[in-house]
């Protein structure tokens, strides 16, 4: 039997049921123009992840993490494959097709593999923080002191190792506590990618100033399409191309749009899948309407027009 409170709706009023951002429909907002008349800002976001073998799984097992009893060698080593092998296929493809990637890095991976970290650092491409490890989740009810320490450790470590300011953030599994945005804002983060509720950036309120919420859709994520939906890599490429064509069409009347591809070298970096990433990058990298750039540039271009 339910208490009568179940039929009470304290947040039932205009706008959202929380105070993090204003309710607005994309069509009602000011249009945005990208530099040089480009229509589509291409944000290729590469997740460089560390899934620890001794996974805690608190409060849940991170998607893509260990699923078998310890030691789950199959999942540990297959994720590691991405950082040893797959990433080098990615980097070659980015060079070949003139793609500017952004790297979202688990700080623990940067600590463990200086070779890879230095290589990314020397490329000059932007690095975002992707949390400490994939198993260090941010979650509702998490102790605030614990989360503050976790975020500080993640950012301090990555700033030191990368030499970059690190102004962008993606939580592992895009999961947050009720305090995550406030803690990020007080630690020098300017934009984050956990709220997949828009196709364009928007202002996000925190107790410590605004963040920019950047749109990195899970729906086009290679892990989501290939490992969760069980589609082929070719299907992933078809979906990306369909999305691109639609956004390009929409941009003719609605202003600049963003095509954000969240990809992982342990997924698309496999020998049988890499050709489909290359197919997509070849098409996008050479397209006259595409601006391939870092997430920081997209956020700034948007911010300067608000």
């Amino acid at each position: 039997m339910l208490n009568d409170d179940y039929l009470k709706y304290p947040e039932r009023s205009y706008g959202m049921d929380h105070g993090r951002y204003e309710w607005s429909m994309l069509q009602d907002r000011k249009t945005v123009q990208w530099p040089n008349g480009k229509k589509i800002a291409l944000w290729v976001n590469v997740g460089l992840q560390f899934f620890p073998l001794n996974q805690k799984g608190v409060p849940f097992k991170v998607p893509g993490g260990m699923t078998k009893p310890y030691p789950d060698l199959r999942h540990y080593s297959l994720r590691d494959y991405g950082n040893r092998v797959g990433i080098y296929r990615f980097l070659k493809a980015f060079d070949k097709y003139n793609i500017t990637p952004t790297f979202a890095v688990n700080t623990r991976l940067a600590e463990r593999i200086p070779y890879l970290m230095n290589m990314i650092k020397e490329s000059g491409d932007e690095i975002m923080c992707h949390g400490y490890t994939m198993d260090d989740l941010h979650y509702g009810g998490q102790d605030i002191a614990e989360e503050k320490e976790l975020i500080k450790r993640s950012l301090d470590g990555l700033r030191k190792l990368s030499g970059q300011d690190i102004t962008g953030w993606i939580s592992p599994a895009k999961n947050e506590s009720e305090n995550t945005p406030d803690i990020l804002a007080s630690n020098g983060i300017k934009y984050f990618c956990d709220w997949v509720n828009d196709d364009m950036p928007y202002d996000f309120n925190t107790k410590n100033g605004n963040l920019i919420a950047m749109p990195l859709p899970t729906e086009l994520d290679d892990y989501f399409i290939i490992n969760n939906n069980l589609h082929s890599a070719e299907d992933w490429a078809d979906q990306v191309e369909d999305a691109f064509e639609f956004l390009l069409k929409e941009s003719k009347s609605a202003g600049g749009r963003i095509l954000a591809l969240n990809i992982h070298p342990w997924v698309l970096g496999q020998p049988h899948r890499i050709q489909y990433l290359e197919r997509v990058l070849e098409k996008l990298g050479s397209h006259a309407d595409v601006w391939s750039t870092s997430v920081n540039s997209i956020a700034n271009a948007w911010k300067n027009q608000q």
Partner: protein
Amino acid sequence: MKEDPGYYEYWPYENRPKIEWPNGAKVAFWVAPNIEFYELNPPDNPFRKPWPQPSPALPGYTSRDWGNRVGHVRQMELLEKYGIRGSISLSTALCDHHPEIIELCKERDWEFFSHGIYNTRYTYGMTEAQEREMIKDSIETIYKHTGQKCAGYLAPALSHSENTLDLFAEVGTELFGDEAGIYSCDLFHDDQPTPIHLRSGKKFASIPYSLEMNDTIAYLVQKTTPRRYGKELKDNFDRLYAEGAESGTIMCIPTHNYQVSNAHRIKAYEEALEYITGHSDVWVTTGKEIAQYFLDNYYDDTLADIKTKNKKYGNA
């Protein structure tokens, strides 16, 4: 608990009395966009967890919010392009949260029907009085914001009680007489309308709404690709169109703005809509219009046919 919900009897899909839709159409075609509000911090329900993660459960909440912020207008423009008026399965609290969406749909003369208050408040565990109050609130909210007398119901998140259909029909009558509370989208047993037995004896129909063509079932449960979903829509139509020559059928596409309006999915959806509406002899309509047409023209004959056959064969 009962072995069978008792809403309808067995009725074989052959030798049924012929249904003829207006202007000789073979298929009554309707699109039912679910326009929903999911709460970030819904109260606990002992029978069903709203979200898999502890609140704030961003993955589910934010993707649904995307449907309202971005997806709605995309689908609405598409339906308009193909001359389709949506029949909205509405989380009625959305009238309070996002009245702009309601206005856009009113301007296009879309139908609004009740899908409860929020899609994170389940019927499970409600007393009859509580469920009646929730349903009444939803019908009154639709009337207040749109002036429409709610004809149809799809229980919130498809969460039901044994009383759901009875209560919906009774509250409809209590508020607006025979105009409201006349059809349900909650049952998936047929491709044609079915008379539903209610304790009040009110004339009431189940209108096929199709779980199989539902984009969320296709994308989240079956995990189909967009192009495959587009093909399934066309295949579903082709068969119902062919069979509709014998007796009128119904095709429904239930959609969700957070699924079908995604940039990588909308092209496949558009191709299917273009294909379906490009045929002659298709009645492009709304749930309420189908239900009313059936109740006015075929309800009595259908009931008589079912009764005769079941007397003859002794079916349950």
